[in-house]
């Protein structure tokens, strides 16, 4: 695998790889999101208890899953970058962060819009919501740390370290928030049980998850291309690429 992977450590090859992968991800995300939304909004049956408001889970669950998925892949890229000193992995970290933050924001907003009709409040300090909010802060931390440094090589390494620290801290934060929540029994919430979900609802949900994953891929690849161009802008291959149009 190392032999196969190694050429892509070169920026130019990585750029070409992005270009090759981008259309596949784009098609998957467009098709799945369109199908998933139409199916989820118009064709899936209404929930017995929550009526039509449950349709929000067709975007809430995918975005929540991907907010954590994006963070894990960011952390994996960060470990790769620090252990094998691969610059492109650093760039991948900083390319994933914005779309991960966007997923977290969507999860929070849709969670609030779902919570209002269900619990009667836009926001409750529940363990999962609080952890999600802290995850958003961690994403913002990585992004701002990267932009705070003038020298982008140092910035990339610093962002990687923070991403790794965050991924180690995240379970601890989640655990402590959950423990904190049991102390305050005032706001217990009935969780939406995904295992008992009816297949007619599960299929559009899975399609949406795939679509969102594709979308995260599209944005990460687009941003990775940008970052590659930015840090290689004095190299001949970039100059040639630009002059070709």
């Amino acid at each position, binding site marked *: 695998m190392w032999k196969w992977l190694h050429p892509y450590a070169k920026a130019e090859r990585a750029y070409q790889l992005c270009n090759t992968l981008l259309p596949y991800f784009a098609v998957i995300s467009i098709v799945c999101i369109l199908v998933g939304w139409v199916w989820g909004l118009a064709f899936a049956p209404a929930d017995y208890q929550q009526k039509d408001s449950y349709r929000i889970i067709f975007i809430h669950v995918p975005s929540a899953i991907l907010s954590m998925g994006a963070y894990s892949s960011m952390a994996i890229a960060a470990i790769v970058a620090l252990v094998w000193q691969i610059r492109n992995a650093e760039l991948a970290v900083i390319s994933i962060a914005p779309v991960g933050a966007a997923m977290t924001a969507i999860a929070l907003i849709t969670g609030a819009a779902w919570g209002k009709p269900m619990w009667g409040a836009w926001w409750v300090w529940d363990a999962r919501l609080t952890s999600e909010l802290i995850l958003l802060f961690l994403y913002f931390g990585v992004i701002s740390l990267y932009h705070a440094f003038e020298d982008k090589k140092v910035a990339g390494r610093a962002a990687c370290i923070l991403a790794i620290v965050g991924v180690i801290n995240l379970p601890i934060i989640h655990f402590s928030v959950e423990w904190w*929540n049991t102390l305050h029994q005032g706001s217990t919430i009935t969780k939406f049980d995904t295992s008992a979900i009816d297949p007619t609802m599960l299929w559009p949900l899975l399609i949406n998850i795939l679509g969102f994953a594709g979308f995260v891929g599209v944005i990460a690849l687009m941003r990775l291309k940008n970052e590659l161009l930015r840090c290689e802008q004095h190299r001949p291959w970039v100059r040639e690429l630009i002059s070709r149009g």
Partner: protein
Amino acid sequence: MHTQHSYWQLFKAVYTKDVTLAFRQRAEIFNPLLFFVIVITLFPLAIGPEPALLSRMAPGIIWVAALLSTMLGLDKLFKEDYLDGSLEQLIASPYPLSLSVVAKVAAHWTISGLPMVLLSPLFALLMNLEQQALGATVLTLLVGTPLLSLIGGIGAGLTVGLQKGGLLLSLLVLPLYIPVLIFATSAIDTSMMSLAYGGQLAILGAMLAIGLVSAPFAISSALRVSVS
């Protein structure tokens, strides 16, 4: 030469310079706001998530967070201009220094106070603030944050020449913020009881008017002292 037109030109030049610089380094706008949100998040974690308790404490928490995050950007208000000599050029301009100062404070408010005002409904939501208090929160922040920038400007002007003026700056300025804090939170409290809070708002407005008239002169003399 001293026409109204050229005064406006000066104001615009100083204001746009500061706002442009802030937008180029977006962290300057973004970080104090993020600090504001994180501080607010810490309170429910520390005192518990009971909605009744939170909504009782919300006005105080939102306003203390607003004070603290205004303090963050204050240190930099005149620092860069002092270090690169632009401040001397502003003094040696044929226009009154107080006008440039107003422009700089206005720019500071645009990048620190205004986003807080715009985001405040979100924080009201996080803190379970009651619906009827939302208007009061937004209004007090709208009237109060420019005042914070003006008062803070005086402290920033006095400490700009110091090597490590940051902490001293907060010691100087935070006591001066107390009246604003008292009337703003009292206005929100009153509104939660569904009573008229026009009185407190009027006092805040009067303080803002006094601040607008007098603070620029105080700031510009503070700057002259710091530069010499």
